[in-house]
């Protein structure tokens, strides 16, 4: 149900000398406004199936700066991230020292571009960290030793792991990373690899 009150919420009614009858419109408007405002993100006040007060969802409006926290509080909020859009942030308990801010979500998860020689996935970790993983069929890749990291938004590599996909063990490869014209690390070349092998990979980096 959506109520259409005729006025905005008025927090100072009724006046001290108003008859209740005079304030009828104001009461009606206020009860309607409270109902509609509460219904945003919440189970409606008069819902008889679900629990009024529980949340249907939580819309976090963009904040210019994370809200300060006190001892015993943490805050979740949304803030704009450069070259992306709003992301979810968390600020730890504050108090005498300002609570540390952590970016919880990063970028936008979607099915990564699969190349003819590679199955690619990506996800993120809190802290503006992106994680690429999958498997590359190196004999079919450019130069027969290249693994790509779509989407190409990684600025630096924090850690990387490569492992031969085979029933026959192989020595661990060495690796060099390549930057694209945008300065992003979009690919890696593996060396000291076993001929004809595919390689599983996991690469962790910053956007």
């Amino acid at each position, binding site marked *: 149900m959506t109520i259409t009150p005729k006025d905005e919420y008025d927090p100072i009614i009724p006046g001290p000398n108003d008859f209740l009858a005079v304030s009828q419109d104001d009461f009606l408007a206020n009860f309607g406004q409270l109902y509609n405002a509460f219904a945003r993100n919440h189970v409606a006040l008069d819902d008889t199936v679900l629990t009024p*007060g529980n949340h249907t969802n939580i819309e976090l409006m963009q904040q210019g700066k994370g809200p300060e926290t006190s001892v015993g509080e943490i805050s979740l909020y949304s803030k704009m991230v450069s070259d992306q859009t709003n992301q979810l942030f968390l600020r730890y308990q504050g108090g005498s020292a300002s609570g540390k801010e952590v970016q919880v979500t990063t970028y936008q998860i979607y099915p990564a571009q699969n190349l003819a020689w590679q199955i690619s996935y990506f996800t993120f970790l809190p802290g503006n960290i992106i994680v690429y993983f999958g498997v590359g069929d190196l004999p079919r890749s450019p130069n027969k030793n290249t693994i790509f990291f779509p989407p190409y938004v990684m600025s630096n590599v924090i850690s990387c792991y490569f492992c031969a996909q085979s*029933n026959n063990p192989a020595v661990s490869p060495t690796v060099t990373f390549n930057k694209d014209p945008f300065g992003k690390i979009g690919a890696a070349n593996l060396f000291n690899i076993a001929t004809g092998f595919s390689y599983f990979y996991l690469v962790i980096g910053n956007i």
Partner: protein
Amino acid sequence: MTYSPITPQSQPSPAATQAQIQTNFAQYALKFLVNHSALNTKNQGDHESVVLEKQASDPGVLQDKVNLYCKDAVANSGTEPQLFAQIMKFLPTSTDGTDAPNIGMQLTQSTVDTVGPNQFQSFLPGGYLLHFGTVTATGAVTLVPGGTQILTALAIPNNMTTSGTPTPFSISTAITASNTFNINSNATGVFSITWLAISRA
């Protein structure tokens, strides 16, 4: 009586609806304290907890905000409500030409194992399971509980050869089932191998 947003009406006299007006004020305070610090308390309006009712679909985001909600997610372990986040569409960009929709991003998964001792499990955003552990013998590693499909499986030897010049043991992995992969190595004697796998939940 329950909260009535269409009270009081012009007829009968508002005085006659005094009880409903009182009910509305009382009900509002009562419903408000669900998930929130109660009215007339120091932190009134703050959230004390958040219970999210399951949504049938992604609610959508059209403004500069993040939308958090709960929705059923299908997994090998069963279908359960999980926490999702949806952000406003920002792709494609100059560095990523993918015209990706702003679909909800699944942030949680039901199965977590932090007890081990040899195999642990957590989750990654996007509906992925992260499995990791250590073995002291080559052979099959069975992920319990497993996902629907292993997407990557990595193993790293923690020891080196002991004869001649020490060199890292050779190693490889091969996925053999939706929840099993083999670790192959030329490691001999006493050794340990650290492994990590990601599967689709």
